[in-house]
């Protein structure tokens, strides 16, 4: 049977809303993509070309600027350092914040709210304010110019936000899951391992990405705490192209473009876990 054509008055506003959504999304996408593309294209230009024609296509495509970076040893060393520092920072952040958040979510003890509040206050302080005391502490611990000297403060700065997010997630898990697990023979540790962690994959991925990006892009901490070039992460590596009198912007653009790639790979690898509805079916909704 032929169905009745829908009332045009009902369909039109819907199409309009969709159009509006696409327009807004397109605009936002453009805002994000345009600088990325400009950067990537800039890496192909000569210094002179970049100055006269910053936004257009390169007049001559200088592929060698990319291949030189990729074939040189410095790029890989900076990448390796950044990767190592970021990966361990993420691991330390996740380890500490899941354990702390679980304790805060499930164990009642004296002074809990105070400790949580103390951690949250940490969110208010930017890294810059802590630089001097941090430098002194790290020096006293003998960790200056070591990877750990950067990793530990980086993780510490991620902890406040991570614990906040995870504690919310853990508290949202149905309480009856804990009861069921306790009756099924778990203690708190097994419950954490077998139930809480698998159900928290979305938040673990989210927190992991936030911590990774923060650590991947950080400049100030390694600048202060590292002094040998062998341990520099990539944001410090860029300085190599910054001469005393001139800055090779076209090379910097090519370098920056190449450093974005690992971050994108990490994002793509983890984003599949950031799916809602993992807890669906636990209890009757």
């Amino acid at each position: 049977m032929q169905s009745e054509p829908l009332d045009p008055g009902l369909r039109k506003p819907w199409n309009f809303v969709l159009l509006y959504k696409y327009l807004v999304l397109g605009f936002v996408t453009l805002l994000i993509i345009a600088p990325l593309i400009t950067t990537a294209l800039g890496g192909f230009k000569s210094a002179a070309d970049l100055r006269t024609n910053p936004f257009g296509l390169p007049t001559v495509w200088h592929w060698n600027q990319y291949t030189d970076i990729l074939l040189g040893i410095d790029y890989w060393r900076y990448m390796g350092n950044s990767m190592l520092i970021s990966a361990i920072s993420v691991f330390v952040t996740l380890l500490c914040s899941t354990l702390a958040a679980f304790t805060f979510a499930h164990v009642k003890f004296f002074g809990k709210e105070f400790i949580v509040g103390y951690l949250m206050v940490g969110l208010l302080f930017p890294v810059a304010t802590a630089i001097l005391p941090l430098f002194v502490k790290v020096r006293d611990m003998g960790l200056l110019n070591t990877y750990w000297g950067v990793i530990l403060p980086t993780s510490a700065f991620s902890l406040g936000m991570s614990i906040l997010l995870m504690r919310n997630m853990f508290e949202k898990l149905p309480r009856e899951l804990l009861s069921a697990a306790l009756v099924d023979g778990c203690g708190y540790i097994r419950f954490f391992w077998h139930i809480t962690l698998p159900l928290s994959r979305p938040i673990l991925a989210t927190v992991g990405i936030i911590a990774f990006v923060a650590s991947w892009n950080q400049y100030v901490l390694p600048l202060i705490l590292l002094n040998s070039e062998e341990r520099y992460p990539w944001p410090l590596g860029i300085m190599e192209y910054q001469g005393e009198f001139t800055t090779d912007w076209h090379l910097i653009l090519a370098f920056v473009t190449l450093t974005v790639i690992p971050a994108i790979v990490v994002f793509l690898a983890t984003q599949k876990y950031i799916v809602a509805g993992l807890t669906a079916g636990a209890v009757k909704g």
Partner: protein
Amino acid sequence: MATVEITNIEKYYGGYHALNDINVDIADGEFVVLVGPSGCGKSTLLQMIAGLETITGGELRIGGDVVNYLPPKQRDIAMVFQNYALYPHMTVGQNMGFSLRIRRDPADEIKAKVERAAKILNLDQLLDRFPRELSGGQRQRVAMGRAIVREPQVFLFDEPLSNLDAKLRLSMRTEIKELHQRLKTTTIYVTHDQDEAMTMADRIVVMNTGVVSQIGAPLDLYDRPANTFVAGFIGSPAMNFMDGTIQGGKFQAANGSSWALPSDAKVTEGQRCTFGVRPEFVEAGGDVAAKVIVTEPTGSETQIVADMGGEHFTCLFNERIAAQPGDTLKIGADPEKCHVFDIETGLRL
């Protein structure tokens, strides 16, 4: 299998006295239902038996051993929750086998036990599904499966059927009853539905605001309720109550009606009391007049709500009664099936 002895159990939540001197002895293999209105402390008591709530005072024994301070995993109990509480990231099979896995049973043994339980509960086709892919009734059965694979000493159920629709509720009731007859495991079952309690229980514990009101077999509670609370709670539609005094060996209600007393009632002339008549024991053709307000025929029965001196009075007749609103009915009741309670304490006289 085991006995459960609850002796002088108390529970305080801060200053709030949630349970007051609870005493229940449950025999090995018995099916006991805790029933009472919402908020009376049934779940609290069950959680204390499970070890999920601390016990403020008194003694709890399972299988003869005091377990007050044992964690849930050492009490050898299994519990079915109102919201099922299935692990969302595990399949049906993994959900059911989880406790055995935690116990480190051999894998093939776990598999065999899960399959056997699945067969009993008709879940064998669903073992690889996730909870989100199941209907409410199936989730409920998985929750039960998770309990029975353990072969625990005691089953605890907390309103397991209240999330199901009416029809499914009736069939699951039968399934749980059958399961109990087959496994003969001591079972404590919590519900707020007196009908569920009456049909399933070997013995019912009626609770009211933190105290045990009466304990007894379903029909004993129905025939000889110890107080007005139990009398009004057990039986549907609820018992009619009238206040009045004893005059000339009869009960003279304030609403003007007069009723013969049951022969075992211990009352004295002039005593003020509450008189109870169950709607289903009201007979047509007595000397009490009642004015019909509404008639609700169901086919097999006729329920009539009538006005008696300004109070509502419910009657349930087994035959079809052609009464119209406004008509006056003449009714009565077998005095042996009526109940007299103290007007102050509400206790049976």
